[in-house]
């Protein structure tokens, strides 16, 4: 593995939102690291804080939200204390962002070719003509059947899959060192999803681009990531290399995810329930998962579990992590 320093270090990040009902502690102490060339999968359900995390990393949190604590080190530089011009130079350039629902994020009145060209010219000193030419080259690379013509289309003329490819191009066009891919294939049909993921893999390998791949789908993580981190209620509750995770996950929530998504784990006993609903304003005391956890003991209701390193770059936050196997099929 590379000896170079981590490209991204998130250290004890806390992001809060104020609401009329109280303060929502959306991110409650998130820490993670990504090495150069590595793909880290971030899995979590809606409300866990995945998109808020992506925006916090880019220092894009606006009131009523606020990053109240923590550091985000990109290539050694703390993005949370950077001044705006520095951040703007990094976004769209050294750090790329892919978002779901492409049509919501493309300007409906500007052609896609121009939108890509604008991203290029925001960070590099090239002529409009050259930028457009590069845009067309990229559109061809991502498989658009008629790139020169389609570069002159407006976003609504494109299907979901094609629009997503445009977003991907915009994120990669300035050769970023780090890509934040927030559900890059979300909302797309499965057959198109596969195409998009394969495309991203192709474009990213061989360039030493690191990626934070945010997804709700363990299947995607299994095949496209090197490591996986599970986000629950604003915290990373388990983190491991992909093989280790799928073979030896320890957190009851992780195991529930596996039980649902993987035939190998289908016969695990139920370890968690779907209710009560998550409430970022009123977090439970102790372990955030305990209200739903079928294995919770008294300690779980009181003490927040610390990060327990189980070896093999595998860490868990659970009081029961060191117990022997959790109910295989009985």
């Amino acid at each position, binding site marked *: 593995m590379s000896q170079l320093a981590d490209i991204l270090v998130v250290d004890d990040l806390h992001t809060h*939102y104020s609401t009329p009902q109280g303060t*929502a502690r*959306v991110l409650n102490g998130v820490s993670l690291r990504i090495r150069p060339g590595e793909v880290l999968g971030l899995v979590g359900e*809606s*409300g866990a804080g995945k998109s808020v995390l992506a925006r916090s990393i880019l220092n894009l949190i606006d009131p*009523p*939200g606020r990053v109240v604590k923590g550091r985000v080190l990109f290539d050694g530089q703390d993005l949370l204390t950077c001044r705006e011009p520095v951040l703007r130079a990094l976004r769209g350039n050294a750090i790329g962002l892919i978002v779901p629902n492409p049509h919501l994020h493309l300007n409906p009145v500007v052609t896609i070719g121009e939108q890509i060209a604008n991203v290029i010219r925001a960070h590099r000193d090239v002529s409009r003509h050259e930028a457009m030419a590069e845009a067309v080259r990229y559109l061809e690379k991502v498989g658009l059947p008629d790139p020169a013509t389609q570069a002159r289309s407006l976003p609504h003329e494109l299907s979901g899959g094609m629009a997503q490819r445009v977003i991907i191009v915009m994120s990669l066009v300035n050769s970023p060192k780090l890509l934040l891919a927030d559900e890059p294939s979300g909302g797309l049909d499965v057959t198109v999803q596969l195409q998009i993921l394969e495309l991203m893999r192709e474009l990213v390998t061989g360039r030493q681009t690191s990626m934070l791949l945010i997804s709700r789908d363990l299947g995607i993580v299994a095949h496209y990531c090197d490591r996986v981190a599970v986000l629950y209620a604003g915290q990373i509750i388990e983190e491991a290399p992909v093989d280790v995770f799928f073979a030896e996950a320890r957190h009851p929530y992780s195991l529930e995810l596996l039980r649902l998504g993987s035939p190998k784990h289908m016969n695990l006993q139920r370890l968690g329930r779907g209710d009560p609903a998550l409430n970022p304003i009123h977090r439970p005391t102790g372990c955030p998962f305990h209200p739903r956890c079928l294995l919770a003991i008294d300690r779980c209701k009181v003490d927040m579990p610390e990060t327990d390193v189980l070896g093999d770059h595998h860490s868990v936050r659970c009081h029961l992590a060191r117990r022997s196997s959790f109910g295989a099929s009985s």
Partner: protein
Amino acid sequence: MAELGQLLRRQPIRIIGFGIVAIVALAAIAAPIIAPFDPLLSDANNILQPPGGSSFLGRDSAGMDVLSRIIYGGRVDLTISLVATFVSSAIGIPLGVLSGYSRRWLAEIIGRVFDLMQSVPVFILAMAIVAVRGPSIVNVIVVLAVLNSPIFVRLMRSQTYALRDRAFIEAAKVAGFSDAGIILRHLIPNAIGPAIAQMSITAGYGILLTAGLSFVGAGVRPPTPEWGGMVASGAGYIVTGQWWPAIFPSLVIGLTVVGFALIGETLEIVVDPRKALGVAAG
């Protein structure tokens, strides 16, 4: 209702609107008890008496006590405005719901007709109608009711449009309810909120319209005490320094309208469909 209580506890200043209207209404109801003088009794010796002494707000050009006329005038203005609002919403709400729910062409036509009505300048139309039918309290009520119903039609129509394709409306259909059942049990309770807020605003506007009509002589005829009419008959004396017959009723008009508007604004917040907890989630 409960949400209203909650909001008032959190932002007590909102009670002002309710307070103003309550005071005016109570005064109007208790008029015979609290009005110092008979509003139609003219004291020829004390024409245009300034405020002070027995006549707290002074007397007008016919020698009638301004304060008493304001109090009794509240009966006229509030009655007209509230009855007209009630009638216009009673017409407008059902028609709005029907034209929004029905997918037949008749619904479109109803909608268009009312849209057309709304595009006519209200005041001109009011004057025209009253000119034809003659000035009286009943006619003013009719005019206001007719003029204000398009607002409710349009409001309920758009609310109904927004709701009719929602899954819970479809669920009521799947349960086996007829269209009437669906409308009454599920659609109206969820759609009516903004209409209730609108009613308060319409009531305030009704007072303005009534006052305005009387001001131009197309509304309630003197000597019936009515705020707009009082302003009309008193306006000419401002120039000569006798401001009280016109200014006091004007203030009351303004205050009452503001009171209704404040109530309307508070109600709008209460009925705002804020569904799930509005926390930015990841």
